[in-house]
């Protein structure tokens, strides 16, 4: 098992170098530079521009800048924002819990609803129930996220007034950030109503972010389940006199989970990196919004560092998925 983990970790190193190269070069392909964008509408003399570029070290040859950056990465230095001068890692660590909280809630909802829905559709294959579940899943999968988010806001926040429109918690509550997870922090604070407020702020973004993964997981579970239900060992399980619940829930589902786990892992990556739209719609102070703002400002250090850190998170998630995969599928382990 340790060998398996070390093998996987070894693969991470070249992947990481690849990501750093892409992150470093792609942001520089965009026209404009940070100094120009910082100056805004004001006119800047070419001399001043050159001077500022020199100060920021951006006039050095590309490869020197890259190796300098890489050297920093090795020591855990992700650089500082050109605009705010704050270290990228600090900003990331401060904003990431918000994204992680939202992504975790979304994936939990997607898994808890998607797997049973997929199993039900497979077991009741060809019935109206199957067709309804798959129909809804297709709609969910095809729906543009921003539009779906706006519809929910109009209906639940605007028309019914049940949920707030944006933010993470009501302005009435204030408490120090301990874990960065609003649900946990609000509980720790002990302020009456704070937790409930945090939940109401989380509901709509969670639904919006969970919609696509939910649809994907439901569809994947259904197809995996359909394949497994035709297997000989499912017939054996039934021939043992096991209840349908045990045949499906234990014998079939365990096998069907193998491809589904992969899908869930990929979706977690998508959620962490791709919550940008949802965060923007609900003004959720996470890393998605932070990254988009930095791209507009050509804040090279933030874009590079942010991409590297997101890539690191996705790689860790993939590693966990690989380990889970080995645990659930003994043919890989042995």
């Amino acid at each position: 098992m340790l060998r398996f983990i070390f093998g996987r970790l070894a693969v991470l190193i070249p992947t990481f170098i690849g990501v750093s190269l892409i992150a470093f070069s792609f942001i520089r392909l965009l026209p404009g530079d940070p100094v120009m964008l910082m100056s805004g509408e004001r006119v800047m003399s070419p001399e001043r521009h050159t001077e500022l570029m020199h100060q920021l070290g951006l006039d050095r040859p590309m490869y020197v800048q890259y190796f300098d950056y890489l050297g920093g990465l090795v020591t855990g230095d992700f650089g500082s924002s050109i605009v705010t001068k704050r270290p990228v890692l600090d900003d990331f660590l401060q904003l990431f819990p918000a994204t992680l909280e939202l992504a975790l809630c979304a994936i939990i909802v997607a898994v808890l609803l998607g797997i049973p829905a997929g199993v039900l559709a497979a077991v009741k294959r060809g019935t109206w129930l199957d067709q309804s579940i798959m129909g809804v899943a297709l709609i969910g999968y095809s729906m543009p996220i921003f539009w779906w988010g706006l519809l929910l806001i109009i209906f639940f926040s605007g028309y019914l007034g049940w949920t707030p429109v944006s933010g993470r918690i009501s302005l009435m509550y204030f408490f120090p950030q301990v874990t960065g997870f609003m649900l946990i922090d609000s509980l720790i604070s002990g302020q009456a109503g704070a937790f409930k407020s945090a939940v109401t702020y989380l509901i709509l973004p969670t639904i919006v972010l969970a919609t696509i993964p939910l649809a994907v997981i439901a569809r994947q579970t259904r197809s995996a389940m359909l394949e497994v239900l035709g297997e000989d060992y499912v017939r054996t399980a039934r021939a043992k006199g096991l209840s349908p619940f045990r045949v499906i829930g234990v014998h079939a589902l365990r096998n069907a989970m193998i491809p589904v786990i992969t899908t869930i892992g990929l979706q977690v990556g998508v959620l962490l990196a791709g919550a940008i739209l949802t965060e923007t719609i609900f003004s959720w102070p996470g890393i998605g919004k932070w990254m988009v703002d930095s791209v507009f400002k050509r804040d090279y250090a933030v874009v590079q560092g942010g991409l590297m850190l997101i890539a690191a998170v996705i790689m860790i998630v993939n590693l966990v998925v690989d380990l889970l995969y080995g645990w659930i599928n003994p043919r890989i382990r042995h």
Partner: protein
Amino acid sequence: MSLLEIKNLTVEFQTASGPFRAVDGVSLKVDEGEVLAIVGESGSGKSVSMLAAMGLLPWTAKVTADVLTFNGRDMQAMSDSDRRKIIGKDIAMIFQEPIASLNPCFTVGFQIEEVLRIHTDLGRKARRDRAIELFQSVGIPNPEERLGHFPHQMSGGQCQRVMIATALACNPKLLIADEPTTALDVTIQKQILDLLMKLQDEHGMGLIIITHDMGVVAETADRVIVQYKGRQIEQADVLSLFSEPKSVYTKALLAALPENATGGRLPTITEKLTDAEIFAGAVR
């Protein structure tokens, strides 16, 4: 009273091109301690009729029978949960592909102990002891260690032994073996058949062997049923079936055996007989 009695069993599947009758009017009886072989080509409805009797067909199958009793109890009138108390315990079944028939995600120990957990009151320790005992009785070496293995870590023959041990876990009165040796090497085939016959003899259980191998029939069966395209063609004791087959189909089947070949190409059945001739010559 027979252990298993079936009269006029019919199984129909709904297909895109209308209903398809996979089993048509099959009747049989098996007594305790008796070995019945059901022979026929692929698609003759051998397996389907037995799966129907156990209630293991998918819901798309329409099963009807005038009589379908096990140990005097009407299997058709029974609720699903009552039937599940019988299958796996009093009627057990083993299948053609032993490796595919075991769940790849669970150890063989889990899979054999599961039957004991469902059908007996044995505690954890007693279940494990019983599993070890069963593995020993089917000739699996190092049973304690083997219980922790997964199916893919075992050979096909070993997996079939596990299947047999699982089937025998609750001392069934009837064992249905659906082509138990087809997927195995010839040498292993012999071992598995010998094992089945030995265990059948020791336990005194009824045994139904579904096969298309006349050699298996000759070696094991007391009585034989020949099926073709879902219909019963002939039913006889094993000696008279081989010495004086009555139906034209059985005669043609025996003539097609390689050991009866007189040289040149083996005769095939369909180039000599039409379906109408086969059904007309049926001796029930």
